[in-house]
């Protein structure tokens, strides 16, 4: 046993935890070790304790639970463990305690950027322009009206006025409007 305590974790937490300081430096060292996370071996931060009494940093334990989601065991004693089977610990030093389980540990999350519309054939961009063509069974004349006259909403906004895409879409929608009118006219006379 040496008295070298260069590896001693944060003094503050050790001080807060001990009401009567140990007689020797070694004793203090061991006292601080009592509050070490069983995974990172550092003084536990965002600490949680399991039902079986083992202390962890929540980020450490969370990562372990993620590693084996179908077999969640306490790393120390292999008792059952889980997010709802641990208790957060709030020390005195923290003015506004927040459940560590609420704030997920900082880790890179998956990203899914939206594909960019490169606009190869803007004239055929049916879904995303101001025009939508749909077939379906509905209340017959109104179905045609809603789809032809853009009465339904929930679509991305039209392109800026003046842009080539805008003029082309205006042109297209006018053509289809006339097609729809001719179709209605044919229905009436047939």
């Amino acid at each position: 046993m040496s008295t070298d305590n260069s590896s001693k974790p944060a003094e503050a937490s050790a001080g807060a935890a001990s009401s009567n300081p140990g007689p020797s430096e070694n004793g203090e060292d061991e006292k601080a070790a009592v509050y070490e996370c069983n995974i990172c071996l550092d003084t536990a931060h965002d600490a949680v304790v399991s039902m079986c009494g083992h202390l962890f940093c929540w980020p450490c334990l969370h990562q372990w639970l993620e590693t084996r989601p179908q077999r969640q065991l306490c790393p120390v004693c292999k008792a059952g463990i889980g997010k709802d089977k641990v208790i957060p610990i709030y020390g005195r030093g923290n003015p506004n305690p927040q459940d560590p389980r609420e704030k997920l540990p900082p880790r890179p999350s998956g990203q899914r950027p939206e594909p960019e519309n490169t606009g190869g054939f803007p004239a055929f961009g049916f879904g995303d322009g101001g025009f939508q063509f749909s077939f379906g069974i509905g209340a017959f004349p109104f179905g045609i009206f809603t789809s032809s006259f853009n009465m339904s909403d929930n679509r991305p906004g039209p392109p800026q006025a003046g842009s080539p895409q805008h003029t082309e879409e205006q042109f297209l929608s006018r053509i289809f409007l006339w097609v729809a009118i001719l179709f209605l006219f044919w229905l009436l006379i047939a």
Partner: protein
Amino acid sequence: MASMEKRLQKELLALTKDPPVGVKVNTDAITKNLAEWTVDLEGAPGTVFEGENFQLQFKFGSRYPFDSPQVMFIGPNIPLHPHVYSNGHICLSILTDDWSPALSVQSVCLSVVSMLSSCKEKKRPPDNALYVKTCSKNPKKTRWWYHDDSV
């Protein structure tokens, strides 16, 4: 990566400061980023391996301690044991399926020494020749079948 090095740093300090009997870290053989260690083991007195020395190699991945280290015997003396293959691979459940992040280099070393100590008869595993010919270099890639708790 940083958390792995930090933890290994702590383990190394504790193991050099207060090593268990028969376990000695070879600090000269440790690589710069702590990812590879060599530990010298002594056969426990009163066992069939009394007086023998072995070298255990540890390789740590960046996911340590959530992922188990790769542990095998290296060097000229590979123990003759029913769970140790002649290429140094060890059939020990805590090195794969039963790994836990609360385990450490020290606890793995003690488990290996204890496994050696409970051996009564020095012999290779029955499938040694076939396994050594067909296995991967990395013992973690082997699908171990843990069936014998007696040795």
